[in-house]
């Protein structure tokens, strides 16, 4: 078996032998990621309406469904409506603290079974219970940490109270977000990811980041586009106007 030192040494030897290299450089990294991220945020504080319009166009282009509500109080009605139309009985959501609102009581009045993840819960029993609930639920409700206009993409960080399966196992994924999550370009996403990793607390929060661009899709059988092969068949984005 090869050890690290031996493996790296072989590569180092080959690298040293490389003839006639031309000058090449990697992408410029922000010197102060946190400051760069703040600058992006400040710019977007003014430009968010254009970013939102672009997001809507791109999101709908990848078969996403866009909703706009005045404030958080109006969100449960949207989710309740989706559940009714689809005959859905059960929902899973992120922890209300991670989500920014508590949908459970309002939705329970509609006769829906709502299971919210709880931050800090991480023992084996809770894990199995949650998995079973998520696999059974027809709708999963999450927030979105970044919303990328250029490509119609929702970016979600996993972590305490933010299970990975909420946006993956149910047939319908609903992501709720406000204006402060909007970004315009992939380059800005790069800045945000640099800033995230430069901040020791946030860098160690959850182990997974998912970029979600529309529903799960495949074209593996005769190039026929089919949605919902493994992940959600529908993705909904709910924009909350109130800052």
């Amino acid at each position, binding site marked *: 078996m090869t050890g690290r030192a031996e493996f790296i040494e072989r590569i180092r030897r080959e690298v040293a032998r490389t003839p006639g*290299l031309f000058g090449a450089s990697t992408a410029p990294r922000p010197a102060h990621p946190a400051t760069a991220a703040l600058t992006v945020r400040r710019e977007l504080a003014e430009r968010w309406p254009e970013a939102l319009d672009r997001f809507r166009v791109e999101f709908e282009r990848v078969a996403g469904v866009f909703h706009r509500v005045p404030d958080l109080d109006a969100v449960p009605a949207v989710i309740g409506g989706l559940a009714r139309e689809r005959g859905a009985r059960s929902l899973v959501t992120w922890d209300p603290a991670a989500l920014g609102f508590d949908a459970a009581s309002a939705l329970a009045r509609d006769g829906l079974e709502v299971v919210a993840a709880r931050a800090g819960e991480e023992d084996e029993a809770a894990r199995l219970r949650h998995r079973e609930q998520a696999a059974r639920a027809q709708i999963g409700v999450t927030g979105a940490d970044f919303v990328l206009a250029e490509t119609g993409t929702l970016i979600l960080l996993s972590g305490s109270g933010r299970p990975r399966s909420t946006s993956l196992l149910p047939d319908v994924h609903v992501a709720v977000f406000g204006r402060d999550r909007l970004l315009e370009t992939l380059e800005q996403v790069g800045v945000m990811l640099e800033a995230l990793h430069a901040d020791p607390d946030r860098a160690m929060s959850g*182990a997974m980041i998912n*970029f979600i661009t529309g529903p799960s899709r495949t074209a593996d059988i005769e190039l026929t586009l089919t949605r919902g092969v493994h992940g959600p068949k529908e993705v909904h984005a709910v924009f909350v106007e109130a800052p």
Partner: protein
Amino acid sequence: MSDALRTPFSGRAGAALKDAFLQEALKIATTKFIDLRKESFSGFPQGEALRDRARAIKEATLQHLDVHLERLADHVERLGGTVHWATTAEEARGIVLRLCRDRGVRTAVKSKSMATEEIDLNEALEHAGVTPIETDLGEYIIQLAHEKPSHIIAPAIHKTKGQVAELFSRELRGEFPADPEVLTAVARKALREKFLQADMGITGANFAVADTGTVVLVTNEGNGRMVTSLPRIHVALMGVEKVIPSMSDLVVFLAILARSATGQKLSSYTTLVRGPRRAGELEGPEEFHLVLLDNGRSRQIASTLREALYCLRCGACLNVCPVYRQIGGHAYGYTYPGPIGILLTAMLKGNASVRELAHASSLCGACKDVCPVRIDIPRMLVELRGHLDREKIAPWTERVVFKAFRRLLLSPTAFRLSATVGRWLQRPFVRQGRLRGLPLLFGRWTRTRDLPPVAARTFREQWKDLR
């Protein structure tokens, strides 16, 4: 060695040419991919500059590959992951098998990975009593049918929906119609159970970010998310050339990868895996293992095929290649088909393995034009042909002909003489001003093409009078 390799390349290609369904499927699929790519880049003016950036990043990374790999390993370990170093395919298989054995793994769910195909991992797992389950729909079909993928990103394009319906009906016991929507739903149900039960998830990696210890997976179906979120162990296998320095680099590649492959702005899912699950996290694997695979790659860092190490595995060069479009992926006979596949095969299996394949290219350059990182495939193919000649791997007839040709071109007298002789010899074969139906070895050329004859008066002869 796969069964396909028992017949020579010309036989494999010939069979593909006679397969009417394959011909139709290839035409439709490759044309569609070409159109989607073109459309996607036409509305994206910054795309060309990003391709240059991406190429520069790959080159800059290779120039310090050792440093980036060490950095990647340090960060993966800092996050609680384990890094394994595999010089050969055999070592890589051994590492995965040992993990399975030590941890009592019975089933492993896999998301599409060319690297695991490259090391024939599935056969090794089965042999060791572990059931590997491919979960990308195309790969799942291929696995049920006991076949090999025929396209890097659309592994089952050679199969009809009728064939898939028949296959599913037999293997999954049911009566399923030849409807892609229904068949996809059938696979969803069958595989959902597997995701929830499997002990191990096995993936490749589209990128690995050295700065942060992040493995990046790009998928459309969501299976990549399943296998990295549900089983208790995640093993990622990647070629060493997949490492990139930073998140700022990553977004450059993301902007052009899906566009080149399927014409999407981004694939449905881009998944960033940063080690095993963290404290406070309910889901995710307890263990994360990264297997770094060399398997002949480092030998090329300072050699002919260096640029092939830039490859992102997007499949764009397959779609535009006039040879691939005619014969499809299986006829190539190895894991990686198409123009880049020839170079990768030479890299991984040695030059002797591409004795015939090195000529399965018209050197038209279409591959280089569409490559997101502008890999100069035609140049490397020509150099590879030179190597085959010098290493005496090329057939002796080819070497003799080229040696003679070289003599001819180097001597003005011999060249002049050859024109005179040629003019005389060609007489019986000139019809309607073209050379047709040549005898012997040359007949294989003129069977499907013609040639301009040697002119009645050569340029040199005319030049004498004009002066």
